[in-house]
């Protein structure tokens, strides 16, 4: 029996959802069958997350019908959906940062001891056992927030999958995972599929889709653009469906982002000139161990390494957002005042943070205010801002980065994740930095936007901007960076440049260094 003939376990029929100013979903239908892995793709803001939230009772649809296990369904709250057997990992890591790892993992189904009271010892044991199955080895008593984003994502994953579920929905689960963790995840997904569970999978990483998914649904501007078996759809066609553009157009524009010639380094200033920023011996107990980094004008330096290797910490240390035990940062030869982000920004060093929600956007402000935020001091005179100047900057960057918003005055929290990321990029470009530290700049960004962002990085580098690029996407790192530093446990364990910059070499450097312990 072919899968498609099985009756759908979860189904949307002509579902619509309107937000003030946007029709986020417009008559979308989608059927999810037991034992299939169903990809849901589309550009940023296409409505993927919205559709998922409609399925799981976060939003109520304005029109259309939901069906679950053959009957009509309407979940008033996520709890109802979860009780009914729909388990979800949402796009933004949605756990409780201050609670311990174990309590997050087992919230709602903690092991009980006598008198129905939670058995703490059993809970910690259970949590350790479950998490080690996902390759997370950590003290489960510590607050979740002390873990890196990737580890948090694995906890969320473990939490969702370990519930008895008929449907598992994953909204961009891999965006913050390392290759090794992605493998673990795929193993889990295959296990789920084989036991007859329906999996819905959202990702902007197309390779992944082809590796695990059977079916695909493409959304474009809130409408259904295509649905069918994935294998029958070649990559280029898929992309053109997502972007709503002609295949040929897509082909000529190309998918990759970084123009090849820079990798050879003839146009960029790699190798010559004095470093614009130079960090020496950055040290912080338990986190960084004497990291040296330098970036020259027009150079893109990549930082590679596994989860928790200290890449984010390195970047934060350079802009003074992390108190240090030792080390020094020099900009154009002059030492930066320690611990002052504003001094770093004034000197021309800016960081695009990894955690968009917690450290990036100001949710209560509009797109416009968010873009202008860092550049405010230069946007007026005597502390009075010039609205006209702001308008001009905002205009330029909204156009240049193709930020999709109803208007500059829309709240940034209402934008899709990808567009929020572009807003942040715009904020940093507006201060005209000499060096830009990008921590996972393309996480959660659709192919189109990703290409745009990458092209932009490229262009900026060519104009003489120094870039420190942190990315878990090895392909991006390899194509984007002129030189790559590999970190492990807070120390630089290798440097690759020129021809050495390949995915294999990075993997090898990480592996060769950690071999001794990785398998122990």
């Amino acid at each position, binding site marked *: 029996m072919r899968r498609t003939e099985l009756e759908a376990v979860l189904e949307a029929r002509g579902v619509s959802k309107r937000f003030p100013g946007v029709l986020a979903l417009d008559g979308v239908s989608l059927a999810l069958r037991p034992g299939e892995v169903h990809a849901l793709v589309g550009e940023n803001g296409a409505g993927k997350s919205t559709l998922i939230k409609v399925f799981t009772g976060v939003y109520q649809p304005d029109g259309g019908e939901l069906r679950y296990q053959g009957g009509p369904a309407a979940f008033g709250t996520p709890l109802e959906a979860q009780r009914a057997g729909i388990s979800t990992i949402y796009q933004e890591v*949605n756990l409780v*940062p201050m*609670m311990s790892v174990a309590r997050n993992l087992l919230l709602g189904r903690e092991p009980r001891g006598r008198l129905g009271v939670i058995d703490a010892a059993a809970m910690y044991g259970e949590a350790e056992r479950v998490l080690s199955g996902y390759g997370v080895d950590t*003290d489960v008593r510590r607050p979740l927030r002390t873990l890196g984003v990737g580890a948090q994502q694995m906890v969320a994953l473990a939490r969702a999958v370990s519930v008895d579920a008929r449907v598992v929905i994953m909204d961009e689960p891999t965006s913050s995972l390392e290759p090794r963790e992605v493998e673990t995840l795929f193993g889990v997904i295959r296990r789920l599929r084989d036991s007859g569970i329906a999996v819905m999978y959202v990702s902007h990483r197309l390779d992944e889709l082809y590796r695990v998914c059977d079916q695909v649904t493409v959304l474009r501007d809130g409408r259904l653009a295509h649905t069918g078996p994935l294998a029958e759809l070649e990559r280029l066609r898929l992309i053109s469906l997502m972007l709503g553009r002609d295949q040929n157009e897509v082909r000529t524009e190309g998918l990759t982002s970084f123009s090849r010639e820079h990798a050879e380094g003839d146009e960029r200033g790699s190798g010559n000139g004095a470093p614009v920023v130079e960090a020496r011996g950055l040290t912080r107990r338990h986190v960084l161990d004497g990291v040296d980094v330098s970036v020259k004008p027009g150079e893109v330096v990549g930082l590679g390494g596994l989860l928790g290797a200290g890449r984010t910490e390195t970047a934060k240390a350079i802009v003074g957002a992390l108190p240090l035990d030792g080390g020094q940062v020099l900009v154009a030869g002059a030492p930066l005042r320690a611990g002052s982000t504003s001094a770093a920004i004034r000197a021309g060093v800016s960081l695009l943070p990894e955690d968009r929600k917690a450290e990036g956007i100001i949710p209560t402000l509009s797109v416009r205010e968010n873009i202008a935020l860092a550049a405010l001091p230069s946007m007026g005179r005597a502390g009075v801002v010039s609205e006209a100047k702001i308008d001009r900057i905002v205009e330029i960057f909204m156009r240049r980065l193709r930020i999709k918003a109803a208007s500059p005055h829309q709240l940034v929290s209402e934008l899709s994740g990808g567009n929020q990321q572009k807003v942040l990029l715009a904020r940093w470009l507006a201060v005209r930095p000499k060096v830009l530290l990008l921590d996972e700049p393309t996480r959660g960004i659709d192919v189109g936007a990703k290409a745009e962002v990458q092209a932009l990085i490229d262009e900026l580098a060519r104009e003489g901007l120094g870039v420190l690029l942190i990315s878990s996407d090895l392909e991006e790192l390899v194509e984007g960076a002129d030189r790559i530093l590999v970190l492990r446990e807070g120390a630089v364990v290798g440097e690759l440049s020129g021809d050495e910059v390949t995915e294999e070499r990075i993997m090898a450097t990480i592996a060769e260094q950690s071999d001794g312990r990785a398998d122990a």
Partner: protein
Amino acid sequence: MNREQLSRTLQQHGAVMVLGTLVIVGSLAFDSFATPANAASVVVSSSFLAIIAIGMTFVIISGGIDLSVGSLFVLGGVLAAYGSQYGMLVALLLPLAVCGVVGLLQGLVIARTGMAPFIVTLAGLLGVRGLMLAISDEGATTYLVKDRAFAALGQGEILGLSYPVYITAVLALAAMVLLQRTGFGQNVYAIGGNEQAAALMGVPVARTKVYVYVMSALLAGLAGALNAARLSSGVTILGIGLELDAIAAVVIGGTLLTGGAGGITGSVAGVLLLGVIQSLINQVGNLTSAFQQVVSGLFLALVVVAQRLLSKAQRLT
């Protein structure tokens, strides 16, 4: 790792440590401070605030705040004294029922409309005091507790400590278990830590909030009733500013006002801290009322800063 655990304990028990220091300093400085009688008076008079602080701890951990407790405290006392003419049971149940309903209303409004707890319970503070004035003839009528059994609940003693102290201890223990070892407690932490995430993780957010406010109101009413039993009357001028004392105690105890972290031990220590500060000021004996206020303000600031520095020490590892 060891260091980390040590400093984590330090932070969690910062209030306990400051309390210990203060008691030692007090005993060295004043002869009549560390006497059993004085200790008993501090403990007994703190017990009513402690009961309120327990409820407040739940509310604050859940990310909310409850300003109505002072008014509920006085309402509970007036109702208990009024009810005591019909016997012990009514004296206890009447305040609990009325305060419970107030808590339920506040909880429902907060949970269902998403209005800020601060403002909803501020309205509660006003409304409940109005209600209390309405049933006591604008505060002119003080009902007396006639029922001996009920009065004994507030006045009876074991080992020199009156019953309310033991009741408080039992409530504190129960609250600790509830907070640390039950699903409800976990839900309270979860919605305080990240309400959206908690909702997505399947925590019944609205219901948990309602419970929390009902609990806080019930405990405030209970404290009021016990106090009425102790005073043998439903005094109508009580409880003004009590909510701030309770909040201060909870926050000094290490519970974050932003929600998501904290505990009962700290709150109880915070209440005792306030009591000890007051007692120390009384020991000095001849400060003018204005100076007393300056000193307690300074003390409060010092304690909060000390507590804060202890908790910062943990962050650094």
